């Protein structure tokens, strides 16, 4: 493969530079060299015809579960990275709830070594907030930061101790690490398995009110104010969370937030329509139509900074069960773009705002490189066909797991090429080596 790639004829959408129009993109030596209206090639360059396509910075996902080490039957760093580039994601942040959890340098190094060997997406580990994610003692943030962790989280296990959360926010300031927090008051969650409302009542499933999330969001906004620490709200799902984040930003607090494709498009009613399908069971749960509308509005107006998938692979062992017994989570890397593109087609989100929330939005939230096609940036690019219709069937997934609520549905929009550091790593459904 040559060192120069020229992508011609596509609609370049790069919100970081305010670009939206037909441009040629020249990638040279792993960097973006030029984005211009000029056409023409240089000898030895690889030419990609992107007519009818969108050309965007490679997507960045701040919330992915790669399951390695410990649960490689669900996903590995390599298969997760493959799923990422298949979905247009060139950078992913992997959550620390592996087995063992990522609270030590050894685990961080293993993840990075596996990612380097896979050579697909850039993988940024997220370290633990507390040792063993036990919610009692701080993990060694200095060592985790030096080893390459870009954020801290006890994802899946809310930090119930307000005192520990305060100290974590303070201590992390020394390393400029954001805390990405799964916000649920476990006492309010109880044995709940879906959003509380008329649908949970009808299905006879225990409900979880949106307020279980909101009380923790409000607590952590208060603690961000107290400490000056960086709080990133993981998978915002309720209208009250969007309201609280909007208000916190208006007050100038360093709070950012992400929202998942499923919380932007599916509701608790879908649990009923699916007849208790566990592909609709996740944490936080799918909420009411009003919550979904608030999340979409929050994403559109910038209250919510970015889209993150919370890609959570599980095997049939954890999913072909009673709804109460199944584990939470769905895969999302390979469906995020078409699922969110539907919001653009419905006129509820502009194309540049969608791309912003998938690129420079997450890059800024965690201070990661990429997310833009500005000259000199890493040559991480996604080429997307916004009109390609495809059947989301189980055999289409590059992930090891297929626990997706969109399985069996027709989706519109696909990533046709993914380029990482100037290397074409994915083309038309196939990994490139």
């Amino acid at each position: 493969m040559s060192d120069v790639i020229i992508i011609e004829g596509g609609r370049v959408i790069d919100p970081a530079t305010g670009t939206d129009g037909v441009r040629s993109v020249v990638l040279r030596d792993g960097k973006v060299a030029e984005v211009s209206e000029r056409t023409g090639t240089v000898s030895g360059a690889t030419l990609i015809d992107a007519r009818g396509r969108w050309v965007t910075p490679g997507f960045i996902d701040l919330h992915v579960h790669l399951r390695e080490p410990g649960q490689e039957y669900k996903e590995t760093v390599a298969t997760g990275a493959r799923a990422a580039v298949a979905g247009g994601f060139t950078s992913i942040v992997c959550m620390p709830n592996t087995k063992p959890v990522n609270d030590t340098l050894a685990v961080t190094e293993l993840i990075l070594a596996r990612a380097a060997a896979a050579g697909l997406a850039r993988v940024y580990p997220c370290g633990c907030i507390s040792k063993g994610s036990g919610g009692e003692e701080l993990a060694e943030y200095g060592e985790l930061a030096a080893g390459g962790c870009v954020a801290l989280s006890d994802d899946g296990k809310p930090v119930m101790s307000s005192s520990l959360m305060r100290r974590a926010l303070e201590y992390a300031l020394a390393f400029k690490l954001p805390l990405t927090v799964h916000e649920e008051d476990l006492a309010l969650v109880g044995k709940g398995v879906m959003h509380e409302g008329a649908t949970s009542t009808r299905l006879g499933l225990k409900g979880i009110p949106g307020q279980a999330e909101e009380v923790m969001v409000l607590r952590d906004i208060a603690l961000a104010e107290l400490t000056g620490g960086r709080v990133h709200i993981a998978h915002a799902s309720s209208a009250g969370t969007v309201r609280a984040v909007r208000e916190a930003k208006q007050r100038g607090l360093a709070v950012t937030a992400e929202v998942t494709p499923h919380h932007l498009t599916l509701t608790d009613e879908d649990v009923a329509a699916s007849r208790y399908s566990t592909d609709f069971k996740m944490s936080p749960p799918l909420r009411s139509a009003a919550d979904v509308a608030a999340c979409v509005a929050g994403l559109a107006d910038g209250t919510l900074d970015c889209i993150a998938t919370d890609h959570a692979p599980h095997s049939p062992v954890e999913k072909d069960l009673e709804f109460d017994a199944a584990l939470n989570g769905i895969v999302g890397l390979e469906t995020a773009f078409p699922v969110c593109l539907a919001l653009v087609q419905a006129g509820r989100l502009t194309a540049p705002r969608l791309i912003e929330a998938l690129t420079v939005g997450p890059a800024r939230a965690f201070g990661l490189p990429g997310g833009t096609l500005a000259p000199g940036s890493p040559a991480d690019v996604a080429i997307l066909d916004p009109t390609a219709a495809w059947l989301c069937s189980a055999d289409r997934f590059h992930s090891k797991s297929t626990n997706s609520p969109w399985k069996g549905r027709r989706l519109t929009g696909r990533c046709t090429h993914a380029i990482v550091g100037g290397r074409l790593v994915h083309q038309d459904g196939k990994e490139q080596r």
Partner: protein
Amino acid sequence: VIGRQKHCIALEDFSREELLQVLDLAVSMKEVLRRPIKKVPSLRGKSVVNLFFEASTRTRSSFEIAAKVLSADALNWTSASSSVTKGETLVDTARNLEAMRPDVLVIRHSASGAPGLVAEHVACAVVSAGDGAHEHPSQGLLDCFTIREKLGSLEGKTLAIVGDISHSRVARSDLHAFPKLGTRVRLCGPPTMIPAGVEQLGCTVTHDLRTAVEGADAVVMLRIQHERIGDPLIPTTREYSRLWGLNAKKARDWLKPSALILHPGPINRGVELSPDVADGPHSVILDQVQNGVAVRMAILYLLAGGDPAEAKA
């Protein structure tokens, strides 16, 4: 089949006509139960497996008797534990039983939706004998049967359901059945026991017992489970019985003389019902038990491939 229903999992899925098909057939079935020799050959050579993951005496016995009166072979498979602790998944258990070629699988499970999950993986008919807090369709049907039999019709009647609606699958099945048959439903209980958005199922809600039962044609009193006390849904059974329990004085002062009192059993005497009311003139609790057998006979007959026309003859 019952109308378009291959299974009997949720009365939410049943049309008025399908409900009436079961209720009408149950009238003939009840007549069989009154004969000196309580046995008809309708389901000879058919087999019914009762798969119970939750303790139950009356419902399991009722299904077992119903199968036997119809000459079906009944097998009881009881498992105290769910798939989480047992090691074998529900789907595997169901597939194993399916391999024994039963005609009907009757399942009770603590997880809402479990009978539907089983139905996706087996070829035989599945009957829910209660799943979590979702539905208990045969109980809903026997409540309809009992009230219709006693009052002659369900059209224009009013039913009050009192107690822990949140955890009650009986209440949900009643809520899906009675309105389709022309009966209005009022729910009553402490606010902590009324689940979110339940009015959207087509009922009214009150927290005052008198408002609920005055003028009602029938009252279903639900069992208060002891583990709910201090859950903390209610402070004590003492306060509960004072505010939401029925005793003879309240029954005399507030109930219509013709009003029926139902209870899905087992009764907590002195909590939701005082003994004099449970055994008093309004009570049709033991009729419910007998009608339960007739209704379950009708369900098994229709789902195991019996001919509705033949049954009428």
